[in-house]
Every structure is written in structure tokens, then in C-alpha cells.
């Protein structure tokens, strides 16, 4: 460790921040981590926002330097809040820069730390409030979503859009939500999922933590995951309407995120001595929970517990049978690696392997600069950039004449499907778990 003073972004509120970041080279403070960026620029061409703008202020190197200058007190963020937020919030948190970086600098984590320092509200306020209810008021949240879906089915949202109601300040996100959400799920699917929720196995062997989209908007995704689990002879216990803490980690208060993760850990520990595997259908949630120990770096007791919990977390790729039968004649397929924090590691390799085994020559490898779909609600944060980045993905899909794009999260499939329907209807996007329908 260097023997000089290590500045902190927000020394007055240490609890609101990560004490240390976990990197492939060990735990580092945020300042140390950001100082490892030697400005070589290897990340620039990997960043979707830099490719769109060709501006340093929209590049990973620029973002890391912003954090460093802020920590060193060389840039007054109070005076430059608007520009700083522009640089911060434009980051997709996708981790492509980390993948390209020799030092594996976790730029996405740096961005979140600076957001926490500035108490930046990246999402529209109302949307943030509603989504945060999933953790704080789960029953109210469930009712609200169901009501919203019914009202949408009755055409109220379309009417509101027609009247210009959604153009009112703070409500424009409703337009995008309406655009990407699928049609109301068929009754059979809703019933099947409801039954699965109600069914509590006496001796569960697997816990399924469904994502928000799988639970409320894409019941077929949740059912596919359950089917994969049952093929592996699992007795699956569902944890419906449970916040993983990721939403608060990205958009809200880190303390709240810690609370929800602690709740998960305790709940998990209470079953079978905390040995049950926990599967999730969202790669974002998977990556977050696998790195949960870094949330508790200042609390060794909880860190150990979090590590034990993280070791039990699985992604849907772990449920696939080891030997997949090759698909018959099919259109070309590809994998959309849009995710939070990272594009490297087991789930991505496994997913690629599954698709390669299944589709053989029809699997299209993505090129070096192919964009992925913005993950975890980015389109609600920076709609204009999100759309352009999605369009780059669509262009690449059209160029390779791909028929199906498999994603690793339901939300990414929803986002991509909307753009595909508009500009390249020959292709469709679906979650990898739905490989066999």
C-alpha cells in the first residue's frame, strides 16, 4: 500500500459507500482503484457511448479521471454538478471497458460511487419511488403492478399517451414502459405461475429468485426456468416479489441495498443450513449477488455470511443439461451480452457454449465493436443514448442476418424486441432460458 494520504469521495458518510472494491487483483479503495487507470485509452473503443459521441466526457477513461479529480479535490463537483451528472449518468455500467482494460478497472463501480456521493437520482423520481416499493412495500407494489397491467390492457395508457398526459414532466418514462412491455400474458400462463408460487415443496432443493420482469411481465420466462429446474429433478422453492438489493445498489441508497441483501442472506440461512442453491434469471442480479461480499467489507461477520450466500448463487445456464441436443435447421442466432458490471466470466462463457452446442454453425459470434443492449433500465435514465445504442445492436443483428438473439436478462429481451419490431422485424429477442420454449 502506498504510504500517502488516500482521499475519499465522501468522507462524511462512509456507510453510504463501498469501503473497498473487489478487483481481480485484490480489494482496493475507490481512490486506489481509479488511480490504477494509466490513461492508456484501451477502453475507449469498447465504450458504446464513446463510439457514439467521440468525446472524452462520454468515455470510460474520462469517467475514471472525473472520479479521480473529484477525490483529489481538483474538480469542484458542487459547482459542476450538471456536467458531472451528464458524464456519470450516461455510463451504461456495462463493463465493456473493464473487459478491454489490462488492469480490469471497474469503471461501473466508480460511477456508482460518484453517483452515491452526489446523491444523484438517475431514474425519473416517480419511477424510482414506485420501483423502490418492491423492497419496502412488496404487497402494495404487487397490487400496483397488477392494476397497472390491467389498466394498460384496457387501453388507458394508450389513451393517456393520445391525450398527451405522458408528456407531462416526470411521466415521459410511461411512454417507454408502454413501448417495451409485452402484451398482457395469457390466462394459462398467469394461472401456471400463480400455481407455482402457491406450491411450496416440503424438501426444496433449489430456490428461484425471479426477476421483476419474469414475475410480472414475462411469466413464460419464469415458467421456462422452473421447467429447466424440474428437468434437473429439482424441487423448486420460489421467492416471489423479493428485492435482491440490486435496484437500490444501482439507483438508490447503498444502505438500503445492504439491508435487502442481509434479508436474503438470513432467509437463505434459515433453510437447510444455508446450503440450498439460489438461481436467478437475470444476469445482472447474478453478478450483483456473486459480488455481495464487497458490500460488507467493513463488517467481517456479514462479509463471511455474504460469501457463503454468494457461493450458492447460480444463473440459469447452470440448469441446462450438460449434453444439449443439436437444433434442427434454424435461422442464425447470437448472444447479446448486455449486462451490468461485466461481460466476462462463467455465465457468458456457459451461455456461449450452450448456444454453440445447440446451434453449431448457425451461432454468430459478435464482432469486437458490436454493441449490447443497455441493461437494467438504462433506457429510462438516458433514453436518447439508450435508443441509439440499441439501434447499433439492431444494425449488427441485421448485418449478420440473425434470426434470434438470446439475452441473459428479461429486461434486455424486452428492450431489444421493441427496437427489432421497429427496424428489423425478421429477428426477435428472447431470454436464453427460453431456448427450448
Amino acid at each position, binding site marked *: 500500500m*502506498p*504510504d*500517502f494520504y488516500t482521499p475519499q469521495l465522501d468522507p462524511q458518510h462512509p456507510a453510504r459507500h463501498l469501503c473497498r472494491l473487489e478487483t481481480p*487483483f485484490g480489494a482496493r479503495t475507490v481512490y486506489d482503484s481509479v*488511480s*490504477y*487507470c*494509466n*490513461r*492508456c*485509452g*484501451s477502453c*475507449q*473503443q469498447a465504450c458504446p457511448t464513446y463510439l457514439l*459521441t*467521440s*468525446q*472524452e*466526457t462520454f468515455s470510460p477513461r*474520462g469517467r475514471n*479521471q*472525473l472520479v479521480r*479529480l473529484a477525490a483529489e479535490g*481538483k*474538480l*469542484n463537483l458542487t*459547482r*459542476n454538478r450538471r*456536467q*458531472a451528472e*451528464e*458524464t456519470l449518468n450516461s455510463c451504461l455500467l456495462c463493463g465493456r471497458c473493464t473487459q478491454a482494460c*489490462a*488492469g*480490469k478497472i471497474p469503471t461501473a463501480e466508480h460511477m456508482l460511487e460518484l453517483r452515491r456521493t452526489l446523491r444523484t437520482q438517475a431514474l425519473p423520481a416517480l419511477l424510482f419511488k414506485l420501483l423502490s416499493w418492491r423492497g419496502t412495500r412488496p404487497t402494495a407494489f404487487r397490487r400496483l403492478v397488477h392494476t397497472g397491467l390491467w389498466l394498460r390492457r384496457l387501453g388507458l395508457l394508450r389513451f393517456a399517451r393520445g391525450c398527451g398526459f405522458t408528456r407531462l414532466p416526470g411521466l415521459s418514462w410511461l411512454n417507454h414502459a408502454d413501448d417495451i412491455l409485452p402484451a398482457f400474458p395469457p390466462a394459462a400462463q398467469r394461472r401456471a405461475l400463480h400455481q407455482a408460487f402457491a406450491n411450496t415443496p416440503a424438501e426444496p432443493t433449489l430456490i428461484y429468485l425471479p426477476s421483476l420482469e419474469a414475475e410480472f411481465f414475462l411469466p413464460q420466462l419464469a415458467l421456462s426456468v422452473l421447467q429447466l429446474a424440474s428437468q434437473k429433478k429439482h424441487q423448486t422453492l420460489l421467492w416471489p416479489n423479493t428485492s435482491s438489493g440490486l435496484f437500490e445498489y444501482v439507483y438508490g441508497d447503498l444502505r438500503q441495498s445492504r439491508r435487502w441483501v442481509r434479508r436474503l442472506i438470513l432467509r437463505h440461512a434459515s433453510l437447510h443450513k444455508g446450503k440450498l442453491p439460489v438461481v436467478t434469471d437475470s444476469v445482472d442480479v447474478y453478478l450483483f449477488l456473486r459480488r455481495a461480499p464487497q458490500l460488507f467489507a467493513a463488517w467481517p461477520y456479514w462479509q463471511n455470511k455474504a460469501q457463503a450466500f454468494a457461493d450458492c448463487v447460480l444463473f440459469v445456464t447452470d440448469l441446462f443439461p450438460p449434453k444439449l441436443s443439436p437444433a434442427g435447421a434454424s435461422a442464425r442466432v447470437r448472444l447479446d451480452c448486455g449486462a451490468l458490471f461485466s461481460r466476462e466470466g462463467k455465465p457468458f462463457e456457459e451461455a456461449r457454449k450452450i448456444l454453440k452446442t445447440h446451434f453449431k454453425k448457425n451461432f454468430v459470434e459478435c464482432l*469486437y465493436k458490436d454493441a449490447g443492449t443497455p441493461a437494467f433500465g438504462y433506457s429510462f435514465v438516458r433514453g436518447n443514448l439508450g435508443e441509439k445504442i440499441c439501434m447499433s445492436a439492431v444494425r449488427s443483428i441485421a448485418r449478420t442476418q440473425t434470426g434470434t438473439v438470446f439475452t441473459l436478462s428479461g429486461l434486455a429481451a424486452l428492450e431489444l424486441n421493441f427496437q427489432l419490431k421497429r427496424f428489423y422485424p425478421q429477428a426477435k429477442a428472447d431470454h436464453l432460458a427460453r431456448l427450448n420454449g
Partner: protein
Amino acid sequence: MKIPAPAIRALQQLVGKENVLTDDVSLSLYAYDCSLSRTRPDALINLPNEQAIAPILRILHQYAIAFVARAAATNHAGSCAALNGGVIVNTAGLNRILQINTQEGYALVEPGVITGDLQDQLAPLGFFYAPDPASERVCTLGGNLAQNASGARCMKYGGTIDHVLEADFVLPDGTEMHLSRQDPGPDWIGLLAGSEGTLGIIKRMKVKILPAAKHIKTFLVTFPSLADSVQTVSDLAAQGIIPRCVEAMDQVTTRAVEEFAHAGYPADAQALLILELDGTPAQIEKEEKQLESICLQNHAQQFIPAKTEEERQKLWFGRRAAYAAMARLAPNVMVGDGTVPRSELPRALQKVRQILDDNHIYASLLFHAGDGNFHPQIVFDERNKPDAVRVTRALKEILQACVDCGGTVSGEHGVGVEKRAVMAYQYDAPTLDLFAKIKRAADPQNIANPLKLIPLDYANKARPALPPAPAVQALAEMLRIRREAHDPIALIGGNTRLRTHAPNTLSTRSLNRILEIDKTNYTATAEAGVTLDELAQALAKENVFCALPAGKGTLGGAFASGCMPDFYPHVLGLQALLPDGSCVRYGGKLMKNAAGYHLTRLFAGSQGTLGLVTQLTFKIFAQPVRPVRACSFRPGKATPLWRALKTQLDPEGLFPSLPGGTNA
């Protein structure tokens, strides 16, 4: 520097308010490149299109505002730092490949095109762009030209300087110039290469593309010592084998790479070479046998050919990961870029290792062995001030050692601000004066990337000037007499091309010595008055060859008349007398040199208007090479830059006038 409000308004009107930024965040994020330099500009202009460059520069010129052109900012020399503030002109957005013409072998590109993107476009067409800087995935073609970047393929194909056919260029006052290698006169593109944005901004480039080699074979060879690996490279050159790439690494690098990239390098080898051959299968097979025998003669421990394309890619993956393998170890990596004559490489490396050990510095050594260009990669933490000072000092000592070995302070990274001071180790005062005059000619207001390249207050720090040879001294004396008598001179060599009957000629025929034929470095040094016939005979005696055809004309004439433009890339160094009588020296037995303006290219084809070339160092070969084509003498076109240079270097009009008879 405070930018006047009217200037900002004029710029905003020109390119739009959204493209002229003065907020603190934007300015702070344009304050750096890959070096340690960090200086905030006063404004930032994002170029919306290439047409905007000239009007922008006219406004900046009008208000005398300094500017720095910046693209990907991946250079290691601090060339993109706005030292005195001013404006950063962001060219990264000019990233269109406008045309690829495989029939005529060129690509027309904007300066912000990423080098790797061009390679990606060319690969399916069966073509490639030869310069391959290690950062090609992120650096730009404009940046490559401005820094004269090169990479592993430089030994065979040369650097960026040799692969740009035409360039549209804007001088700091907004004057637009179209530069072409076809035009007679000085090799302006050569002068532009490595000028680091101090002469203006590149607007558009036409680069040479080549058919991709169909057959390539790569070898990994391990040695018990660095000296053995370097000797192998010298022996290869002596046998006339020019591999496509020759890359070398020491054990520190090999181990770091293996830990990071698992490329399959033997970790116990003290040194290893990656050699690559291309050509016809028969040629490769023949050269492979010679290669293996030379390697074994030099105590090679293992000679492993890559059997499959996968294995080949793995070997190169390891080499490309060499920077990354070190970069992950500490917050900063300082990459040195000294270059020495190939024969001096073992001595230079020994000195470098000694300096690193004396300063207790952890560093790896990897080098483009074929060019004598080595990169010590020093890992440290810039936040630790004593550490940073120690590293900076050690790097200066390393560069001094390079110069002591007859080398240069930069082979391919450029000078910028980081190596500005050490330029004084390499060049004497008259040569640095000439650099300053070139800068003044192109940029009298000193607004284009000011304070770069040329050391500050160099008069007392510059390397002492060596006395010129007696014959050169005699010529200088004659020049002095003519200057004092205001008697203009017509410079001639053998008078074979100019065929002048003027009474005031001054011939270089008195400079008629062949000074050295170096069969270790494969260079020859001869005075300008040596005839091509004499040269051919002398080389034949030593059983070596050069690219010049035999003839009655002189070496200096062949070079300065512009009749043999294909010979310019063969010239590695020169000495010249300027109209004021001073003697400048540039280059030497170096295969590449990115320190300062390329004086060889300035005097090449200058037709005696700017100076009198007295001595040249050029490449020779172990095998006969096809002679360069000779065209008839054509007076060039007096461009604004040529006129400005003439005014700076020869205000009294002592040397031949510019074509058209006027200097003003």
C-alpha cells in the same frame, strides 16, 4: 491563456454552441493523454466535419489562440497536453473511411479513423495497412502520422511516414494545403510525420494499402541471454533475411506475460524472439532453414514454429499483452522508446539494465529487435512523488545512454513534452535552431501545439556541435564569402540533372569520400559529392548493395534533386550546410527516429533551396535490390510552407530561388 469572448462567439457561430465547450468537467477531461502530463485547456472544440478545420484555425490565428489537435490521445509523450492552455481541437469524430481502392492500392480516410478499424475493413478484401502500432485498436491514423507511429512490422515495411501517399493539411493560419508524394519538391508528408501537431492539423489522408501475405510463418526462439538474441537479429540482417517482424522480450516480460496471458512462453528463458516470415512457401522454407541455423549458432535453446494459425495467434497474443501484463501491476507504466543502431543494442541494453538496477526500479524490457528500438516498461505509482521522480530521472539516464550509443531518444512514440528536455542530449544547437526555424516558418505566432518538441533555452544545454570535416569547412567558408558579397549560388553536384551554365555554381564534388560501409548495421555513410558509379563500385567491393542505380550524378544530387523519390525511405541520416553557414546533423545508423522534425525528408527533393546536403547515411543490403526509379528533373511548386521556410532559412536568397524565381 484567457480566450476572448468574441473568439468564443465566432467559434460557436461556426460549429454550433454544443461543439464549443468551456465547462470545468470537459476541460479537465481533455487535460491528459497516456503520459504523466496533465494541463487543462481553456476551451474544447469538437469538430463536426473536416471542412470546419480551416475556418476554426483562421479564427484562432486571428486572436492568436494556441491550439492542440487531439484524437484518441493514446501517445506516451504528452503531445496532446495543452501546456499554455488554449484550445483543444478534438478530431476523434472525423472517423469515416471514405474510400478503399484495392485496384490502385490506397484508402482515403479522415484523421480520426481507428487504425484497427481500417485493418478490419481491409482484411476481407485481402489487403492490409502495414504500420501496426501496438495500440492500433484504439489509436487513430491521424495520430499515427502526427507521431510517426510504427510497430512490429516496421523492419520490413517501415513506419507511418512511408505509408501516406497524400494528405490534406491546414497550416496554423488556416491555409489549406494538398500534399502529395507525386509532387516535386521537399517530401512535405515526411516533414509532417512526427511533427506532433506543431505545424498544423491533418484534414484527410490517403494511405497506402498492400495485398496481405498469403503465407506467414511464425517462430518462437528462446535464448540463454539477451545478447544472444540481439546477435541473432544482426546475423539475420547480414544474411539478407528481413523477417516480417522481429520482437524480443526479456525474462521479466516473459514471466509477466505468462502470468497474465498464458501464451505458452517458456518462463525459464532469459530472452526470447518472435520471428515471422512471409512470402512464397518455397521462400519461407528456404529462409526458415537459414533462420534455424543462425539461431542455433547463437545458442538458441528452443526453436518452435507455430504449427497452426491458432498457435500463431497465441504467440502474438502474448506479445500484444506485454504492456497489459505490466500495466496491471501498478497504477502507472512508463514506456521508454530509445532506439540505437542494431549493433549497439547489446551494449545499450546492458547500460539500461544497470540504470534500472541502480535506481531500484522494477521494469521489463521488450523491443523491436530488428529496428534497435527498445521499450523499458517501468511500473510505478505517480502518487508517490519520490518514486515518480526516481523513475523520471532513470528514464532520462536511459535516453542519455541511448544517445551515447549513437541512438535517438525516440524511435516511434515522439517527443511531446516528456522528452522535450532530452532532445538537447541528442541534437546540437544548430540542429535545434533549424527545428525552431521550421516551427517558426509554419507557425510564426507559435499557436500550433506550442512548447513541444524543442527544448526550452537549449543554447547552453544542447549537445556540443562537432567540427565539420575540412572539406565541409572549406565549403562553409566559400558560402560565407559569397554571403558577404551578396553573391547568390547555384548548387550543383555533378551537374548531370540541372545542366546549368551559370557562372556562380558551387559544386559538392570536393566532398567525395565514402566514409563507412557498416556491414553490421547494414548502413553506408558517404559524402554528397560521391558519384553513383563510385558508390556502386565501393559497395560491390564489399559485396553489398544499395537501392541507387549506377550513374554519373552524385549521391547528393540524386537525393536533393527529387529525381529519385523512392530513395528517401532508405536515407537514415544526413549532414547539411545551411545558408547561414551552420552545419546540421540528423539521424545516423538508426532504422527509425521520431525525435524532432524529419530533416532527411525536408532536404530530400528540396533542390538546394533550403540547404546544401554534405553527407548521407543510407541503408545497404546483403542481396542485390531493385534500383529505385529515376525520373527527370522537375522544378517543384512553391507552396506557402516552402516559401515560409525559404524566408526563415535563407532570407538573403543566397541559395537557389524557389521554382518560379521568387522566394517571397
